[in-house]
């Protein structure tokens, strides 16, 4: 239990730091959301009127007061209003979050399936040239820009072949192409790491023992190698969450999906501090939780780690 408590404590420190650093950085940027929205010539407002608006958003008080105000708001679940949309931040996030969770969750799942399929096939496939070709696929995948991939998938599968509509699609149809767009580049590093660690494990003495007992290559791979090759892959998977978020921004823009990614992009463009603050905290929470889960899963997969964790 102290291990868990320490990890949770670390997580909290990360959150507080993330919050504070974001707050300071956003304040240090030139201009602010009120200026961007209301001083833009669309409205023709006078400087006095803009000052009034700034006061109404509470943006005219000293920084430390704003900080305390924001912190106390967050602690009771009040994330404030988006200046750009005028909408409460929790409402914006509430609408965007399920979209992104579905996209990122499925994208990650498909990426894992793709990666496992690629890694296994590139180990088991007949013919050296085929294995070599499969090995080089992740290299191609990883160098494909998400943006370009999305557009190509739309052009081919929606506009040319008419298989899935982009406009007016039902919720399931609306996920197919974005999930693929997100999954393909994410699958690449997973597949590479998995394939490499399968190679490493296969060279271990215990595999030679299993082979000597007469096990076929498929059985060795499934029963003995895979489990051991999984550790590094899971580590990478934790890190890839960041990439998943980045990919979601682009994917959501290309496909016109209103998720957290697109919300982030627009909030950055408009320096919508309240929205950004909430998103950063959300991202930090996700990151911290995922890494916590990854750390807790290690000992399950490798009993040696469990003993170390308990001893520590």
């Amino acid at each position: 239990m102290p291990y868990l408590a320490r990890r949770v404590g670390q997580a909290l420190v990360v959150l507080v730091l993330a919050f504070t650093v974001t707050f300071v950085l956003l304040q240090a940027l030139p201009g602010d959301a009120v200026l961007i929205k209301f001083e833009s010539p669309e409205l023709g407002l006078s400087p006095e009127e803009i000052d009034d608006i700034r006061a109404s958003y509470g943006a005219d008080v000293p920084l430390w007061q704003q900080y305390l105000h924001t912190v106390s708001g967050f602690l009771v679940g009040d994330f404030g209003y988006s200046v750009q949309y005028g909408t409460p931040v929790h409402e914006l996030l509430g609408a965007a979050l399920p979209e992104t969770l579905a996209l990122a969750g499925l994208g990650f799942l498909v990426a894992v399936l793709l990666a496992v399929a690629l890694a296994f096939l590139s180990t088991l496939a007949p013919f050296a040239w085929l294995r070599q070709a499969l090995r080089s696929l992740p290299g191609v995948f990883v160098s494909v820009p998400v943006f370009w991939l999305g557009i190509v998938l739309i052009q081919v599968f929606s506009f040319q072949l008419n298989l899935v509509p982009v406009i007016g699609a039902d919720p399931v149809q609306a996920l197919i192409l974005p999930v693929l767009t997100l999954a393909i580049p994410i699958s690449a590093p997973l597949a590479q790491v998995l394939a490499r660690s399968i190679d490493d494990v296969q060279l271990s003495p215990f595999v030679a023992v299993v082979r000597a007992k007469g096990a076929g290559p498929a059985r060795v791979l499934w029963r003995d190698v895979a489990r051991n090759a999984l550790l590094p892959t899971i580590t990478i998977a934790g890190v890839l969450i960041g990439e998943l978020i980045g990919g979601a921004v682009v994917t959501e823009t290309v496909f016109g999906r209103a998720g957290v990614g697109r919300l982030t992009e627009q909030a950055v463009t408009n320096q919508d501090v309240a929205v950004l603050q909430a998103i950063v905290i959300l991202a930090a929470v996700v990151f911290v939780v995922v890494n916590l889960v990854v750390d807790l899963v290690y000992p399950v997969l490798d009993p040696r780690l469990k003993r170390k964790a308990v001893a520590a």
Partner: protein
Amino acid sequence: MSTPRIRRLAAAGTAALAAVALLASCAAQSGTTQTAEGGDPVEGGTLTYLEYQAHTTLYPPQAGFYPNGGIVNSITARLTWQDPESLEIEPWVATEWTVNEDATEYTFELRDDVTFSDGTVVDAAAVAKNFDTYGLGNKELGLTISEAINNYASSEVVDDDTVTFRFSAPAPGFLQATSTINSGLLSPATLDRKLEEFGAGASAEIIGAGPFVVTEEEIGTSLHLEAREDYDWAPPSFEHQGRAYLDAIDIVVTPEDSVRIGSLLAGQADVIRYVQAFDEAQVASAGFEIVAAPTRGVNNSLGLRFTNPLLSDVRVRQALVHGVDAQEVVDTIFTENYPVATSQLASTAAGYKDESKALAFDPELSEELLDEAGWAVGADGIREKDGERLSLTVYEAKPQPLSKQTLELVSQQLAKIGVELNVKAGDAGSYATDTLDPLKTALYHSMVGRADHDVIKSQYFTKNRNTLLSNDAKLDELLTAVASEPDAAERDKASAAVQDYLTEQAYVIPLFEEPQVYGAAPYVHGFTTEAVARPLFYDTWVEKQKK
């Protein structure tokens, strides 16, 4: 041209057929502001309309941003209607009006059969509340004053159908202001909302008296609008009365250009906004229509901030004006739908005066002027004077189409006369702060659309947009005259005087007349725009239903 007319002509034999062909070709030319007519309108169907950006607010005075304006135009009625071609102001919710001699008092008579979509009546009290809000603002609720309404003092409800507005100074632009989307009439209860409550997620609760109502919204993604069955108060000048032809409109936000165009061409969408100039040919060659509607205001142009010391000499400014080849900009980057500017105002704008001769491209003259002003060509080809380089900065303007490409081409043109123009692409924050400083932003790329003489004042007056960051009292005086001259002919003169002055002082480099460009499927008919190119779906109908 009316449909029955075409039919009559077609029935009149071969000679008439030739006439039809002739008329059709005329229609093709003048048809740049609406889709083709095609037989009798059909009622029903849902139109899928792709927007470039998500809307941000439906508070009418802040709805100038096109994604906002398109929605406000569909869900609100206004006191008056401005004919997009003639720019005449016609009755709509108001049946008639009187204006006193010095334009400080306006009295409107209202129709008695108009209702908001929540059932409340559009009466004098409701109208008065609208203009009190738009003219004076409401600080408590955060509702700002409308840029279109100047000098507003008070309202008076004379009786249920009569309302009078009073102004502290002449306000000749007010009548036109009552026709713009910024004066869209909202129900009294809607006007009690805070500014925040007009934003994303609240569209269905914004109650107007227009032909459509918003029934569903997915924040940032889509809006569903349905036609009001009981709508029966279209402007009397419209041929079509009663409810809109369409049953519904789906507005879908599709930020990626190629996806918008592809969806239209693949039959997944019916009308799209913001067809980039380089995509027009592709859309047209696939048999789809390009609707390029003029925005009738201050042209897409570069304002020269003369309070920057480098630009304080009028000869330097004149050199810049003559050193920019707007024709080349249009030929290289845009299409024929972007006419080369012939003044600071668009040729379709109220109060326009042709200034093309005095603004002509003449690089040799530019070089002479710069020599005269003492700027000698330095070692790297950029002119210098007293150890200072003639180096200026301009920011890419995100709202302007292909702003970066335009500015880069202008920069190349200016380099030929020895002027360095740095094109910067800042984030929104730096843009907002730096463009308020003439030293950091010597040239300012912008435009503004409004079909009234006042538009030029909006752009250049020190207490409005003030895009020149001016300190020129003479300019302010000339602009004030435009906004306060009650007589129409005198306003034309006042507007011409401003254009002459801007030209003489070389304060502005006009580039082109900026349109809003829409793409429409061939089976969409009657899609038009209001006076400054916001989509008007009331007359739109769909010939064949989508699969």
